[in-house]
């Protein structure tokens, strides 16, 4: 009914059908190798791959637009801070100095910009991957996946419940916001930014209370049905590994191996075009 809600939806794609465990293992493998590696060619390839995946998962841009903007915003602030606080770091890393402009302590070098470009790529590839994981994995399957790779099931279930409640909390937020507007808080685009911010703060309190109420009820309901009785539990949503899942893990492993091979040929984590 409403496409703007954030979170898991049943979509008929192969990524959706893959098991939570396989997706989780793939996600962890790719993000880990991508975070370690500073080989720009490898990162560009990973970025392209993750955007292809988000496309294949039939996730529409509107669904993650807000989050993407937020991540880019934080990422850019991070890059600016690095430029301001450690402008010589690129030079140290690559061992050469190609000055573009500036002088003295605040000198911008090609090495510095290249280093920061690598950081940007890390944001760009990991974001779509997380979105693919979150949007295509049924929360309880996700929990089963976490549990399978060794996370205690209570923690895994807490994650699943949190994911499941995101749409509920969003719809609560909308209802409360409308109710507050009816009381006289103008939060529509008609009013000033300050007023809108004040209005938004008014929504937080009832939202927190209604969410606390939910948590209280759900934890009682869970205890009454013996959640936490044993150290292990079974999962209704548990799925058998199919060829697809095995293939997915193999492909991820292959990518990790390529990443590691690149470390060897580059003689370290960096790929240095300046030498």
């Amino acid at each position, binding site marked *: *009914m409403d496409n703007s809600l954030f979170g898991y939806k049943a979509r008929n794609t192969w990524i959706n059908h893959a098991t939570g465990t396989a997706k989780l293992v793939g996600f962890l493998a790719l993000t880990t190798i991508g975070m370690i590696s500073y080989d720009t060619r490898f990162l560009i390839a990973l970025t392209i791959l993750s955007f292809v995946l988000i496309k294949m998962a039939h996730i529409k841009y509107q669904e993650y637009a807000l989050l993407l903007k937020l991540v880019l915003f934080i990422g850019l602030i991070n890059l600016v801070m690095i430029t301001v606080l450690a402008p010589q770091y690129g030079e140290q890393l690559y061992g050469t100095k190609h000055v573009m402009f500036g002088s003295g302590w605040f000198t911008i070098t090609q090495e510095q910009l290249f280093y920061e470009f690598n950081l940007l790529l890390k944001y760009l590839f990991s974001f779509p991957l997380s979105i693919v994981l979150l949007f295509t994995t*049924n*929360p*309880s399957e996700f929990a089963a996946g976490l549990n399978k790779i060794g996370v205690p099931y209570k923690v895994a279930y807490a994650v*699943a*419940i949190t994911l*499941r409640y995101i749409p*509920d909390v969003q719809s*609560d937020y909308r*209802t*409360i916001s*409308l*109710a*507050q*507007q*009816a*009381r*006289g*808080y*103008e939060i*529509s685009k*008609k009013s000033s930014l300050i007023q809108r911010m004040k209005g938004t703060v*008014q*929504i937080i*309190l*009832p939202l927190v*209370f*209604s969410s606390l*109420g*939910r948590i209280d*009820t*759900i934890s*009682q*309901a*869970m*205890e*009454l*049905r*013996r*959640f*936490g*009785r*044993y150290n*292990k*539990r*079974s*999962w*209704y*949503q*548990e799925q058998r590994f199919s060829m697809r899942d095995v293939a997915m893990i193999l492909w991820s492993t292959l990518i990790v191996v390529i990443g590691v091979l690149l470390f060897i040929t580059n003689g370290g984590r960096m790929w240095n075009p300046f030498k």
Partner: protein
Amino acid sequence: MVEPFIDFQHVTFKYHAQSEPTLHDVSFQIYPGEKVLIAGASGSGKTTLLRLLNGLIPQAYQGDITGELTINGKKILNQSLFDLSLQAGTVLQDSDAQFVGMTVAEDIAFSLENDNQPIKIVREKVAKWANRFGLGKRLTLAPQSLSGGQKQRTAMAGVLVDEGDLLLFDEPLASLDPAAGAAAMALIDELQQERNMTVVVIEHRIEDVLRAHVDRVIVMAHGRIVANDTPTAIIQAGVLSANGLDEPLYIQLLRRAGVPVNKIPHVADVEKVDVSNFRDQIETLAEPVQTVTHDDKQLLVQNLTFAYDQQEPLFENLSTSIHEGEILGIVGKNGSGKTTLSHLLTGFLTPSGGDIQLDGRSLLSDSIKERADHIGYVLQNPNHMITKATVFDEVASGLRLRNIDEEQVTERVREMLQLVDLDGMRNWPISALSFGQKKRLTIAAVLVLKPEILILDEPTAGQDATHTSQLLSFLQNINITNHTTIIIITHDMHLLANFVQRALVVVDGQILADTTPAELLANEALVDAASLRTTSIYRLAQRLSIVHPEELNAAIRK
């Protein structure tokens, strides 16, 4: 001699957070295979009693317990919550909030998963119980997307997979419309006979519970048991109304007719009670159905069209008018567009066609805030409306936002708080209020802005008879003194029968009928379409062959 299944001996309980005990010296027994209704007004201690039975006390709520409590011969306090849950399954009040699983299947499977049972067995049991409850085709749906009745059946299946001997229901009818409520009670009855289970139902909608079969009624008030007997003895003794509970409508009628209710056998069963000797007395009570007419058209809805999904429009060319000063009820089964209609009136949603006019002026270009000056809207869930920390500030906030000077704010807020009987609590933190008090608070916060029209979504949900009648007399009061038009979205039969002047039946986006409540509640076709039930008065009139049951419905209006 049969051993009692549940045995409470002189149980007194005090929550750690409170200074006074909530239960005082409570003693009762429930025998295997019995179906017992525990009834009481809010604050009577019935929820606490339930928590003692299912083990939430002392594990989730701490307190001091004295006395002896046993279940199946074993002391309750020596058993863990998990042990108890295998014997006593609890269906919580708000089925929406108790769903743990993403899908119906997972929710039914939840306790089996926690017992770490093999997946094959879990799947078999889920399939078995889902089929028993007619949910076999809905296993992969989200529980939240089901109808109220299906939700409840899912919750019941999730508890019955344990195959325990005792089922506890906490207000099973609270979120169901009357038709679904009747179906739920019938199902509980069936299960109990099929499996010879012991069933304990906590409810204050006595009429609906008594229309299904109940062996015994325990009436609670102020933490004590004030009556514990068969339904007939309870009705004969007249203890319900004395303890803040509504008597069934036909009993109210019999009392008005001067029938000696205390001497009539089977009086608790409208299908069995024999009052044919008093037929004439009852018939003379008949009052012509009053059509309270208000002529000034205030709110006009013209050719309103709206769709959530372009493929399936909900409203197509809906037209009606609402008159100044009337008390209008909007009824219809869940999901048929009642709340959507009120959201269109208040501007929460925008129609794709048609017009809404207030006193001849179109409202469509007004913002939510601008409309709120004329049309006040009280949402069903008070927690969605409350933003301030104290009672006074909550009511004052709307006025302060409209830049009214503080002296006048104080005056208007105090006056309003007195009306809703919260003035003594004006400096209280809102978190200390009960659900019913919060509900009255939100009504006050909307009414203080003096809207010409007040829309209330399920105002009586979660309120017992005493608070309902307080609320109604207060609404009646502002309706008469301020000429405030009142629109109520409800499926509360008592509210419809006793309070509403005109009823709009909305089904699948159509206005199926525009009639008086008395006539509506005596029209079987309409009642079915709106997922209501005919009143017990109607049933009694049928059995006595009284021709105009609607005139008897009209007789019990205050």
